């Protein structure tokens, strides 16, 4: 058996056992394998499991095993896991503005949405979906908002670069040449 093959089996076993998501560093620390090898194995595992009832998925930089969404109707009865995030349309829209334009000030969000977003912002902060990233260096030093790690977890994303590109997937709107 090749080294990669052995490493892959070991990592698979650890992922199966762990209730928590594991980063490449976690796995490398536990197994003593080089991060590059761990990362290679994880990539393989993600592919191997693609069509199975269980998936290996990277969320917010950490890997874990999850059931495949397509079998949800059958497995959800067994799950005690509650995620319970319900967002209003307005909140979701504000979150989208922040996710795609971060870091962004309150004023800029309001400019895009055309409405006051004070209440929604504090709600999103309470839900830990967004956080204060710092302050813009300009008069008034307005607070800059960005999405949090919990945002990635809630939306099952590995990183912000996994956000779908609204320009590419915009097939329902006939987009004209004059894009901004």
């Amino acid at each position, binding site marked *: 058996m090749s080294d990669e093959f052995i490493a892959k089996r070991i990592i698979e076993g650890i992922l199966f056992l762990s209730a928590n998501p594991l980063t490449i560093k976690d796995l490398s620390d536990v197994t003593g394998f080089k991060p590059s090898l761990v990362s290679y194995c994880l990539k393989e595992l993600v592919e191997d499991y693609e069509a199975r009832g269980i998936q290996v998925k990277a969320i917010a930089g950490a890997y874990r095993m999850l059931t495949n969404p397509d079998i949800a109707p059958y497995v959800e009865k*067994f799950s005690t896991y509650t995620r319970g995030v319900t967002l209003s349309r307005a909140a979701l829209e504000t*979150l989208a503005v922040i996710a795609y334009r971060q870091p962004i000030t309150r004023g800029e969000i309001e400019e895009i949405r055309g409405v006051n977003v004070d209440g929604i912002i504090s709600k999103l902060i309470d839900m830990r979906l967004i956080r204060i990233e710092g302050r813009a260096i300009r008069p008034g030093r307005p607070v800059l908002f960005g999405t949090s790690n919990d945002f990635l977890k809630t939306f099952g994303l590995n990183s912000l670069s996994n956000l779908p590109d609204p320009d590419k997937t915009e097939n329902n709107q006939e987009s004209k040449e004059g894009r901004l």
Partner: protein
Amino acid sequence: MYSVKLEIFEGPLDLLFYLVDKNQLDITEISLALICREYEDYLINLRKLNLEVESSFLTVLASLLEIKSKTLLPDPPQENEDENYQRPEHELVIQLREYQRIKSATKELEEIADKAMLSFPRPETGPVDDEPVVFTSQITTFDLMDMYICMMRRMKKQEETGVIEMQAEKVSFPLIFRRITKKIKARLSTSLFELFESPPNRIHFIATFLVLLEMARRGKISLVQDQGDEIITIINRRRARREKKLEMAV
């Protein structure tokens, strides 16, 4: 008074977007007569809104009229006849287009959120941590404020017992940073109280708080507060990671 918030239209842009979309128009060529009329109809029905909301709707209506009047006027004569000359777009059109992109981004987000909800992880098994701790993200500014007040009170008590020496003091943040680092280095956790030197000094106090917040922000430490107990503990994150590693290896 009973005020109803109409969930359907979140502000003037949302309404305008809806009307443009409904009438299958391109936002760059808004057929204004139609849109303006519908927009106005909606506004009239909303007369009972508060001034701020209504005025924001009116601003957009005014912009629509401005666009309309501009399209009716001939282009100003160009100094250098450029065939590719295009009338600069109105701010509202740009705004609306941006809004349209956000709308579709919202739809995307909704879809991935729905999908994420359909994947289930393993339930947590095994020994549950019996120490209830609240992590950094859950300590609010108010907790820190309470803590600060608590420390000040302590300090006052000590002040009362002794002679107070007044001195002009300079505080060096790097110095305090180094002192904190030194104190927490060897251990996994350190109580907040241990960090303050005696005799207590208000300036050092504030500086130490600021440095701690900065360290937490940079991820060097976590601030943990046992529930019920008001003492904040500083967790050395590097140390915590190392211990976690060991735990996992066992």
